[in-house]
């Protein structure tokens, strides 16, 4: 595992084109997220935000057609998802997968083992317990089958528990805020702010500015029809809130039909 130096590890996405089952979903994405910064990725439905997360993490269905994804100077193309995880990347899924029969605690133990971070049983249990507490979840979740019959909000919190336990250097949070009530949203945001203090990089994919009331992003990017159409500082969030995406779409020359076609994919 390459040892990343704080402040120098950067996620760099260059002219990335990705297709799923032959359909082009990402059409030349350029995005740079340095470690230690929090970026927000916004945009209408079907813009390709979730696909970008999957492509970065190496989901086999998302085929990179051209361009590059680099992390800490190294290209990720051709690397397995487990290798990307071991290199310090993390993806919090929009719809976390249930694995019946595998308890949360066993899943986390396997994950840490896979990352070569095996802890003593007592230290491991203390670490997990702390994080479960921090996310205001009941300890009984540790012995439940992971994500199995969890509510939407419980799944999202469990993703943040995992992030805190695995301590990645760069996390992509795919709509971690959706389906959370205000209290849960605040709890999750606090969780993100804690890891942010440790110097982690975060890319928050979201539809809403809600979560950005609690986590102030360093940069905001807007994605539509498979590419980044606008980037700016935190003030962009307020602008989107006021005018919607339409002015940006027009400026980028994206016609309504193209957007509709992208959304229907």
């Amino acid at each position, binding site marked *: 595992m390459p040892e990343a130096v704080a402040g120098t590890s950067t996620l760099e996405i260059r002219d990335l084109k990705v297709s799923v089952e032959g359909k082009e979903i990402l059409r030349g994405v350029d995005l740079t997220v340095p470690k230690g910064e929090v970026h927000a990725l916004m945009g209408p439905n079907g813009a390709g935000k979730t696909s970008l997360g999957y492509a970065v993490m190496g989901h*086999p269905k998302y085929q990179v057609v051209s361009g590059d994804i680099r992390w800490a100077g190294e290209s990720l193309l051709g690397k397995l*998802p487990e290798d990307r995880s071991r290199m310090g990347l993390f993806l919090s899924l929009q719809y976390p997968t249930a694995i*019946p029969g595998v308890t949360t605690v066993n899943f986390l133990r*396997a994950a840490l083992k896979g990352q070569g971070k095996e802890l003593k049983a007592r230290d491991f249990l203390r670490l997990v317990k702390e994080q479960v507490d921090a996310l205001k979840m009941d300890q009984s979740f540790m012995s439940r089958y992971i994500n199995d019959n969890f509510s939407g909000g419980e799944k999202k919190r469990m993703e943040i528990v995992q992030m805190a336990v695995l301590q990645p250097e760069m996390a992509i949070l795919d709509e971690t805020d959706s389906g959370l009530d205000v209290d849960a949203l605040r709890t999750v945001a606090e969780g993100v702010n804690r890891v942010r203090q440790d110097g982690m990089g975060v890319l928050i994919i979201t539809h809403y500015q809600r979560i950005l009331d609690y986590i102030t992003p360093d940069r905001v990017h807007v994605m539509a029809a498979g590419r980044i159409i606008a980037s700016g500082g935190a003030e962009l969030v307020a602008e989107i809130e006021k005018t919607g995406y339409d002015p940006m779409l027009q400026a980028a020359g994206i016609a309504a039909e193209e957007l509709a076609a992208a959304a229907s994919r």
Partner: protein
Amino acid sequence: MSELGISAPTLARDRVSVAQLPGGDPAFVASLRQAAAAAYREEPWPSSTRDEDWRRTPQVDKLDPATYSEPATSARETPEYLSEVVRGPLAELDAGAILVDDQTGNLEGGDTPVARTLAVGLSQDAETWRGLLGTVATPGLRTFVALNTARFTGGACVRARRGEQVPAPVRLVHGVDQGSAAFPRTVVLVEEGASLTLVEEWVSPDGEADLLVPVVEVVVERGAHLTHVIYQRCGDQTVVQSTVRVRLAQDARYDLSWALLGGAWQKTYFDVDMLGYGSESKAKGLCIGGHQQHYDVQTLQDHIAGGAVSDLLYRVAVADRARSIFAGLIRVEEGAQKTNAYVQNRNLLLSPTAKADSNPTLEILANDVRCTHGTTAGRVDDDQLFYCQSRGISEQAARRLVVEGFFADVIDFFPEGPLREDARQGVLESLEEMVPSGSLTVGPGSG
């Protein structure tokens, strides 16, 4: 099939002769055997073309018990493969009685007040067993029950007396080796209000063609409780023809966990007769097959009395060219109102050439019942794999985790302690064995 080239004419259908218990048969056993031999001679051999039960197991058409070598008539020392099993993981089980038998009859153990060798139990306690042996599994029920009845020499009589809470489990190890055939018989009586845990292991060594034909007859009386655990760890060329038949009285409880982890091909029957109002049967079984293994399991939940609950879950993972066949029948007899019955079979296909056939059926003659069945067959889910991998778990470890998780509810139904750990270990080792053959690294597939 015989290694020694000696055939066993005593097992040929036209010439079958009855065996005798060591020390001789009590009269009721002798007459039962005559009836069984007659049934074996007269009933037609099972046929994959004529018998629905055998439709998917054509191996039976060519099976001829007479080709297995004649079992030795004199007792012998416990062979090494059986000693190894006895000393194995379940040695940690604090068993109150351990009995070991093979094709020659009983080898060691037994003769505690709870568990006796078949010969001792049937002769010394004839009054008790006369009413049970051959009545739960009648000789004419099926070909291999008839053959077992005509030929059993080894096995056990297990009895928990009225109100007795037997603290330590009874452990029975039934083996067969040397290219021969064995017919262990177990009779179990859990008297009114009593409780007992019974563990049975069906074993044989690898690399030799053996035939194991166990028959287990169980009666659980009113308000009594039996916890029954069955492990099959047979060699790669062993044919198993087994029958477990259980009869439950009013408010009786029966918990069965089984693990089928080895053998060439087999047919196994698990039958429960819900004879008493309020009786309850829970059965959870698992099977892992690789190579060319062929597991045919047929279950019956027969609700004769009303107000009873039966629940059966069978989980199977097959790899390579292995095949699983399951037929599960819930029968609700006329008048068995307020029946609550469930049968489900879940199959995991670990290679494109593995196959699972599943056929749960309901036959309901009462109108106020709740009966359901469920069946699934699928592959390891890609999304589950990606989820594990994205957290740093290698693909191979992820597959193992998901497959182990698939069996978790069955494993957790085994009694806590060495029995459950042994089931878990058995699953892990069976999965491990499949890794070199590439079975766990098939391409993508979806559930």
